[in-house]
Structure formats: structure tokens, C-alpha cells
């Protein structure tokens, strides 16, 4: 019923293209069901925008996709912020959240 199957790579492509992202990582958290994704998006378009605005940008870029999947999580950084974090923590792939009912995952180490 979805026009295109939503996969990690299809989301990655969409984000790269629509947000001119310089780096994108998407992980399927739903055990392969393609229903629940977490992501890290690095794009200069986020500069000067607060958290809400960045997420809204992502939401509109992925409007159709998000409407179809069950859970979506994103970490939006500018290239500078990404570099900084990589330097300090070695980076991570989106907030490692558990979109399902079981499992309590500790939040990102910031």
C-alpha cells in the first residue's frame, strides 16, 4: 500500500537530497520491519535553527514517509556540531532509542 517501501537507504537518499545533508545515517530499529527508524542527519541547513525548527525541517522533508512509519527519531546537527561531537565522543548514530515497549535505553551521553 506504500508507494515505495521505506528502507534505511530510501530514507537516507531522501534526506540527503531534500536537506542537502552532508552526512546521514539511518537505522531500522524495528528489527527489519521497516516501521521504526532512528537517524543522524548532518546538514548546513540546520545552522541558526533551534531544535524544534530543525526537526520541523526534517518532518516536512520526510512528510510522506513519516506518515507511513510507526516511529521516527532524529538527531539534527550542523557540520560543525557533528565535527565537535565526533572529536569528543567518537560520534553515534542518532539517539539510540528503543521504539518498542520493552527495553529501557539510557539516553544519549552528551
Amino acid at each position, binding site marked *: 500500500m506504500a508507494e515505495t517501501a521505506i528502507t534505511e537507504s530510501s530514507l537516507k537518499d531522501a534526506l540527503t537530497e531534500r536537506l542537502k545533508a552532508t552526512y546521514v545515517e539511518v537505522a531500522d530499529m524495528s528489527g527489519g520491519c521497516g516501521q521504526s527508524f532512528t537517524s543522524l542527519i548532518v546538514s548546513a541547513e540546520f545552522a541558526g535553527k533551534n*531544535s524544534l525548527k530543525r526537526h520541523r525541517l526534517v*518532518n516536512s522533508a520526510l512528510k510522506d514517509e513519516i506518515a507511513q512509519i510507526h*516511529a521516527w*527519531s*532524529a538527531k539534527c546537527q550542523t557540520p560543525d556540531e557533528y565535527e565537535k561531537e565526533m572529536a569528543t565522543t567518537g560520534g553515534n548514530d542518532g539517539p539510540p*532509542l528503543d*521504539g518498542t*515497549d520493552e527495553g*529501557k535505553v539510557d*539516553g544519549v551521553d552528551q
Partner: protein
Amino acid sequence: MSAIKEITSLEGWAQHVSSLLPSTLLIVSFHAPWAAPCAQMANVLSTLANEYPVTEPFSTSWVSVNAEELSEISETYNVTAVPFLVLVRNGQVLESVSGSSAVKVRNAIESHAKPTAHSNPTVGEKAAAVTNGGAPVVGNENSEALPGDAEKQREELFKRLADLVKAAPVMLFMKGTPSEPKCGFSRQLVAILRENAVKYGFFNILADDEVRQGLKEFADWPTFPQLWVDGELVGGLDIVKEELASDSGFFSRYSTKVNGGASAAAS
């Protein structure tokens, strides 16, 4: 809090009606045991009935009638489908609501009932406006609006949402309730609020599909949980975490952290 009385016979009906004062609003709910939406409507009504205190003299009277068994009564009120709600005062039918739209039912009752202790025009949900969240509203969206009504309904819904997001300084729209979250993200957000001893109101969007879909449009935000502060959307779990990471005092204005860190957030 008023209880809903089940009418089991024509005599019982006649007796009940004759006992009413001319000023009492009689709320008659017609149901059929085989119709699933009726069970949900029963829930909606009992939640509503709870908001109306039993007063002397009675300002509201809530009764339930099995539409098939007591078909004479159904015919009197032109009950063509169930669930069906009829509001009567002094023998006059004020309004009837057909179908299972919790919003329509609530609006109809509120517009005709005498004001209660804490009458809130559009925020009938007990979920919000209290320190601790309260009973979530059990509702069911099954609008029977005619095409022309759609715009008006949308306006009313948005009006209702505009009030709902301000029901408490911090409002959490979540899946499930703080004591029983139905989704990992909602659960985490509840935990964060608890850790920061935040006082908040909550609304279980799983219990009201109209709010669930309407709020997505109203907020221009596609997912839940949603945290609103002072009537403005903060965002979902990700954003709340990010805000806290950059400012650990993000919630301090709404926190009840006093000596001992007693948490007034939902249990």
C-alpha cells in the same frame, strides 16, 4: 458525581420521568448490547456523568435505555440508530445526537446542562489542568458530519485543541497514561518529566482519535508524544532531551523540586 441509571421497563421509565423537575436536564442514552460503539459511548457518558455532581435539586439525570427492548421509548424519540443520545428538559427534546462522536455528545450535554463547579467550555477532559493528570477521557471518533458541517467541526476541534494545549503550563500528549505508557517514547518522556519533578497535565491520545489526528494538524507535528509548554509546542522526545542537554534548568520553572525532591508528577 452522577451515575447512569439503567431503565428496564416502561413503568420504570414513566416513573423516572415523572419524578424529574422541570429544570432537570434528562440525558437519555439509547444502546444495543450487540453494537460495539455503544460500549464505548457508555464509557464516554460515565466519564461525563462523573463531572456533574449530584445536586439537590437534580440538575442532571442520566439514564440508559436498551433501544430494542424498550422500543416504544425508542419510537417516541425517533431513535433510528445506536448509540443515540437524547437531551430532554421539561418534556421537551432539546437535542439529539446520533452516532458515537464523543465530541458531539460532550458538546451537546455541556451546552444544555447547568454549569458545574469547574465548568470549562471546551476543556471537558479531566486529563488536564490538574497537578497530576487525572482520569484520561475515553472517547471514540466516529463523526457522522455532513459535508457542510466539516469546516465547522474542524473549527470547533481546533478551538478545543487550543484550549487543551493550555490546560496546564506543561501538557504532555502521550500514548497511554503516565502510569501505563503504551509506547517507548512516551514512557521515556514521562520518566524525564518525573526526574525533573515537573508538574504537568497529560492527555492519552489513544483514547481520543479526534484529538489524536486533529492535534497532528493543529501542531503541524506528525508524531506523539508531544510536549507543550505555556501553550506552545516544544516537540517530541528528541527535542526535549536536546533542550535539557543544552539547558539543564529547562524545566525549573515548572518543577516542584523542593527539599527532598518530592515529585508531584504523575505516578
